[in-house]
């Protein structure tokens, strides 16, 4: 566990250092995935569905705020719809305008959540959305999630009935238009998924904000189970075409992602929880304090080993020893010449230190082993 926590700290440090590049990289990947999916599913206009257009749009949107990507995605969808049938494009435009009027006018910065929801549905992992949105967001996030699901189903309706919608006969056009509008407004599978995701987000959010131990884990599991039950029950009742494998796998993935998110954003130590009660003049307070788990990343200390500096070793022979001894004797005799005597004593001390240092170093480095006799 501590290793994981250290990794988390390292990840945080890396993110703090390179957040601009990481965010732009993720934005580019998201753009590539989004425009690629739109073009591969409803690429009715050949020019707009080319690889260059996909890549180009992704690159351009990388350098702008996320709301530009939302507008570009909506425009690309409308262009493809227009290539298929003008009335379909007009109805789709009206639906996008209604979404803008009733919600995105107020919080345009949250518009990218619509893309995330639609992408999750396109990647066949629908029940990751309630867990992620419920854990990281607020209950208001149900609106962009619902709009994303409606947009996804709108595209998939057109993809499924492209051949019928393509005909140029006026009766067929009117019939196609009415059937498309009916499917978008009253599509049972679409509304079933909208209901499952909305209730899932609310359940996850309500449990996550309770003061209970392991709230995040319980919320993830409960949200996934609620979504699974609603989707399965609705599918049986409506005799819909929701894939059970898909919803089961996405629920499991949602729970796993919930655990990862908890580890990244909410790692606390419930074993050290403190329940405190105190009061002031007006209130009684019942406080539950759960300590955060925090580890400091071990810092690597780099020790610089500088090049060995050769030291001068003074070898004292008999003659020098004699001189030193005579100096010492003179120092003892003549106390008046104190300065000279002090200098001599300092010399002796220094020389003695140097000799001792040399010997100890030689012993440590094994230089004098040759001369030693084996014991």
């Amino acid at each position, binding site marked *: 566990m501590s290793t994981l926590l250290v990794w988390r700290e390292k990840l945080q440090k890396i993110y703090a250092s390179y957040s601009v590049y990481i965010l732009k990289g993720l934005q580019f990947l998201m753009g590539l995935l989004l425009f690629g999916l739109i073009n591969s599913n409803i690429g009715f206009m050949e020019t707009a569905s080319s690889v260059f257009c996909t890549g180009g749009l992704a690159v351009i949107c990388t350098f702008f705020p996320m709301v530009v990507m939302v507008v570009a995605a909506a425009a690309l969808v409308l262009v493809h719809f227009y290539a298929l049938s003008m009335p379909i494009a007009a*109805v789709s435009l*009206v*639906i996008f*305008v*209604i979404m803008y*009027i*009733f919600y995105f*006018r*107020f919080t345009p910065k949250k518009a990218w959540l619509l893309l995330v929801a639609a992408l999750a549905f396109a990647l066949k992992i629908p029940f990751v959305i309630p867990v992620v949105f419920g854990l990281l967001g607020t209950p208001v996030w149900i609106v962009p999630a619902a709009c994303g699901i409606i947009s996804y189903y709108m595209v998939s309706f057109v993809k499924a009935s492209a051949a019928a919608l393509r005909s140029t006969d006026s009766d067929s056009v009117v019939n196609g*238009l*009415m059937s498309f*509008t*009916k499917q978008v*407004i*009253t599509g049972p599978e679409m509304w079933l998924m909208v209901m499952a995701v909305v209730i899932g987000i609310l359940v996850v959010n309500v449990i996550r904000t309770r003061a209970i131990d392991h709230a995040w884990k319980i919320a993830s599991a409960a949200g996934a189970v609620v979504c699974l039950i609603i989707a399965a029950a609705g599918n049986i009742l409506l005799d819909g075409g929701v894939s059970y494998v898909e919803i089961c796998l996405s629920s499991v993935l949602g729970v796993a992602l919930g655990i990862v998110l908890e580890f990244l954003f909410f790692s606390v130590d419930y074993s050290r929880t403190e329940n405190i009660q105190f009061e002031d003049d007006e209130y009684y307070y019942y406080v539950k304090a759960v300590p955060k788990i925090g580890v400091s990343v071990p810092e690597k200390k780099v020790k610089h080993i500088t090049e060995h500096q050769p030291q001068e070793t003074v070898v004292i022979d008999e003659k020098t020893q004699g001189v030193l001894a005579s100096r010492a004797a003179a120092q003892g005799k003549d106390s008046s010449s104190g300065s000279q005597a002090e200098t001599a004593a300092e010399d002796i001390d220094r020389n003695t230190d140097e000799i001792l240092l040399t010997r100890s170093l030689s012993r440590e480095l094994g230089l004098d082993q040759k001369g030693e006799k084996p014991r």
Partner: protein
Amino acid sequence: MDKQYIGRTCGNVMLDQKKIRLMTRTAIYEKRAGEEDFKITSYYQKDYSSLNTWTTLIWITVGFVLAAGLFFLCGGEDLLEGITILKLLILMAVAVGLYLVLLIVYGIGAGAFYRKKYTRAKRRVKRYLRDLSRLEKMNSKKEISRS
């Protein structure tokens, strides 16, 4: 409290950490929310919230007409089948009732939303102006000490 300086001396000039913090904070604010906040606070709160609430109500009317058109396209044939004047009146009453409910809900919601937005913008601008005046004081102090 002593002034905190960072970095090396550049000639005779030292970097004032407190001043750098203030300048960074003001620059970030100007980059992120400054322009919008100045625009918002150029109004009185009541004017701002009522203007935007009215705009929202107009948008809601447009949205309602578009949504009603879609519903009519979707189920108009069934609705108009065997229509009588009474049925038509009931249908119109339901539509008008829905429209009024929508107007009231969005009117109240938008009013509260824009009042809150104004209050937050005002608070941010106030803090920004306080930071600017502190910076000005620092600069004037420096000028005096130089002279």
